[in-house]
């Protein structure tokens, strides 16, 4: 073995050893980040309870539009439409959106009135992981309606890209 080759081998060994140490350090950190992303049904139930109280939240009348697959959780388009005539006596009072696996369940809450004309809102949200999104609408007659859609997120927001 020539001197150059020996030198190269030594470097290669050092690099590999260094990589192993790095991997060892990185893995637990990654696992902790993953562990935080478990769905938190209690927090979600509490957030919904704050909105709906003890009223029954029925399925229907609300249409939640989200892409079934999202490459980047940092910006996911979202459209909520409610089936309502929007007359002064029958209108949508509010629309609330929740994400079950985000560190905080609430996404957006909007207050509408009969002057809204059309109960449709659009925005962009962050998603930490693949999860279910829930939209709840409160109507002027005091009933609550909901729609649930699941979104597959390839790269989650919040926990990636440390500054």
């Amino acid at each position, binding site marked *: 073995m020539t001197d150059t080759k020996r030198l190269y081998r030594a470097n290669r060994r050092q690099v590999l050893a260094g990589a192993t140490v790095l991997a060892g350090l990185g893995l637990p950190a990654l696992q902790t980040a993953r562990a935080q992303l478990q769905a938190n049904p209690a927090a979600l139930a509490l957030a919904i309870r704050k909105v709906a109280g003890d009223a029954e939240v029925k399925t229907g009348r609300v249409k939640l539009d989200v892409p079934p697959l999202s490459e980047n959780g*940092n*910006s*996911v388009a979202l459209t909520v439409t409610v089936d309502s005539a929007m007359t002064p006596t029958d209108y949508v009072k509010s629309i609330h959106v929740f*994400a079950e696996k*985000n*560190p*905080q369940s*609430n*996404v*957006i*809450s*909007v*207050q*509408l*009135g009969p*002057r*809204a*004309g*059309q*109960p*449709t*809102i*659009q*925005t*962009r*949200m*962050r*998603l930490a992981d693949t999860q279910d999104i829930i939209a709840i609408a409160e109507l002027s007659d005091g009933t609550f309606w909901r729609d649930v859609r699941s979104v597959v997120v390839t790269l989650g*927001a*919040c*926990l990636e*890209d*440390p*500054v």
Partner: protein
Amino acid sequence: MARALINVPAKAKRGEVIAIKTLISHVMESGFRHTSVGARIPRDIIDTFVCTYNGEEIFRAALHPAIAANPFITFHTVAAESGTFTFQWTGDGGFSQTETASIVVE
């Protein structure tokens, strides 16, 4: 002063439902991120957005950290009379910005 984009039709027929699109540049720092040395980055978001039409509130939104950076919000209203829309965003650290747009209703 953050840059805000507002899209309101210049003209509308009376009783017509119009779409209003708003976008404002803001980091919407969630408060859940950490720096590479582990320090938590404090939350810095816009938490309230209000739209008034000739002084009457027609739309109000409470935003949470799950709203993407540069919050984009679209909503609708019925064009009732000519006048102005006032848009106000308020948030953490005393953030407050007001913009206006006018409409002619025929």
